[in-house]
């Protein structure tokens, strides 16, 4: 259905790991690029941890080559450009804007709308811009709960004492949002942060002018399991454990060992970096087109794998015991995609996740208790 299923950019065979960055202008038969002069790029962060900005260094020496082929016109993490500088640029004058971070403040919205106007292409860079990301787990609490917890009762937004009104911090949106829920996004480079191979794949395509269909996600449509070197044999789950409870066998599939590894429902493209290091995949590249909703696809898979001996009515209580070992469902199954896959909090309240809507500002322990999940 989606373009990314078919339209992989040239030079990135699906069967192999991520393509390392290749300096096309040196070894390509056709050195001509689409860009008459050095393309102008902007990199911007919104509700970001900064990891995405640093991730560009992951490509190693190739960064020198990439940077020599582009002109950086706006990148707050590198230089100190001002909003006025961006405002002064003509619309469409930036060739590509790479935006990372979740959209959390009024200022985030204004800045990405400005970048959208100035840039020909907008790329959602990293899991936050792609799906909402780790900071969007904050959507499990209301804005008032969050502000009350952090600032204490009686907080108010305003400038520092004696300061001018415009020094007031920007207002928080009611919820964190992925970039695509605020402006049109042309491409996505997923990951938390994006792995070097996928960054290289993006720049290869961009600098050579061989960009795939708009909407393309620079990762594989196939599941991570297909590129994971761990061996799968049993395909039966006799218990569910959390990473701190187990020193996993170095060879065997982590899911088979009882760790909730999201490899079966997550896009490949990182060479299974986490499973190779003994940590289960948490789904940062986003679900495969086939999986759709990662949480629902995963509970379908888990239910198929769980066994408490011979299946039958006698096994049911033991099976439920195993299924109950799956805790923190949202944090485990939707770590990067709460605003993309889980709806508004008023519905959650109504469905009894937190019981009665709490009067703002805030109970001392916002949202506690909901982690147990609903009644079965």
């Amino acid at each position, binding site marked *: 259905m989606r373009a990314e299923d078919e339209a992989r950019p040239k030079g990135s065979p699906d069967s192999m790991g991520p393509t390392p960055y290749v300096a096309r202008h040196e070894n390509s038969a056709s050195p001509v690029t689409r860009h008459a002069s050095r393309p102008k790029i902007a990199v911007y962060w919104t509700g970001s941890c900064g990891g995405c900005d640093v991730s560009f260094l992951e490509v190693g020496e190739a960064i020198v080559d990439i940077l020599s082929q582009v002109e950086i016109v706006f990148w707050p993490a590198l230089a100190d450009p001002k909003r006025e500088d961006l405002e002064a640029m003509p619309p469409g004058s930036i060739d590509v804007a790479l935006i990372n971070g979740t959209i959390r403040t009024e200022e985030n*919205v204004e800045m990405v709308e400005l970048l959208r106007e100035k840039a020909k292409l907008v790329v959602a860079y990293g899991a936050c811009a792609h799906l909402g990301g780790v900071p969007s787990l904050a959507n499990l609490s209301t804005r008032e709960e969050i502000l009350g917890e952090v600032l204490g009762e009686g907080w108010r937004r305003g400038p520092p004492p004696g300061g001018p009104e415009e020094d007031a911090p920007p207002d928080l*949106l*009611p*919820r964190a*949002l992925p970039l695509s*829920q*605020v402006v049109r996004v042309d491409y996505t480079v997923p990951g938390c942060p994006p792995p070097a191979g996928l960054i290289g794949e993006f720049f290869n395509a961009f600098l050579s002018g061989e960009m795939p269909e708009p909407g393309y996600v620079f990762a594989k449509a196939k599941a991570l399991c297909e590129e994971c070197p761990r061996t799968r044999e049993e395909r039966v789950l006799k218990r569910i454990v959390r990473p701190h409870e187990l020193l996993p066998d170095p060879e065997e599939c982590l899911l088979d060992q009882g760790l909730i590894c999201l490899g079966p429902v997550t896009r490949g493209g990182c060479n299974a970096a986490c499973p190779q290091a003994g940590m289960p995949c948490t789904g940062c590249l986003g679900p495969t087109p086939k999986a*759709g*909703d990662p*949480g*629902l*696809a995963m*509970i*379908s898979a*888990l*239910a*198929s794998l*769980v066994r408490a001996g011979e*299946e*039958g*009515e006698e*096994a*049911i209580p033991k*099976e*439920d015991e195993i*299924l109950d070992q*799956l805790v923190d*469902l*949202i944090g485990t*199954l939707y770590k990067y995609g709460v605003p993309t*896959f*889980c*709806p*508004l909090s*008023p*519905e*959650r309240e*109504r*469905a*009894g*996740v937190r019981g009665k809507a709490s009067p703002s500002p805030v109970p001392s322990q916002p949202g506690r208790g*909901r982690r147990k*999940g*609903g*009644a*079965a």
Partner: protein
Amino acid sequence: MAEFEPKIVAFLCRWCAYAGADLAGTSRLKYPPNVVPIRVPCSGRVEPAWVVDALRQGADGVLIGGCHPGDCHYVSGNYKARRRVYLLKKILPELGIEPDRVRLEWVSASEGKRFAEVVADFVAELRALGPIGAGSDASRVTRDEESTALRGG
């Protein structure tokens, strides 16, 4: 105001529950007309994503009907269905959906009467729950509308 008529999507396994529903029909048993039956090969074939999809597209409840334990045509599909529904019901509140809107029932091919009773009971329960998404005016908005609304205030 007219009484709320819940819409139910029923995934019924062809070997038992669907045949049971058929029997209810051919025996001219009366049961509420709120069910849209969908025939599936086995209850174990029903994906949690289908259930949530039906609810997100406006069904007020989803019924999954399969063979009694030990009777599944594919030996253990109904046990798998049970585990799936068990987990699904845990995650539904997190997705903003009351878990009682999903029901798993065992109905054999000879239990036309039981099928009629199950439907009547489910309809009564859903009437008490009310329409899906009621009580939250934001619940039916699409993602785009939602983000616009959020940005507006």
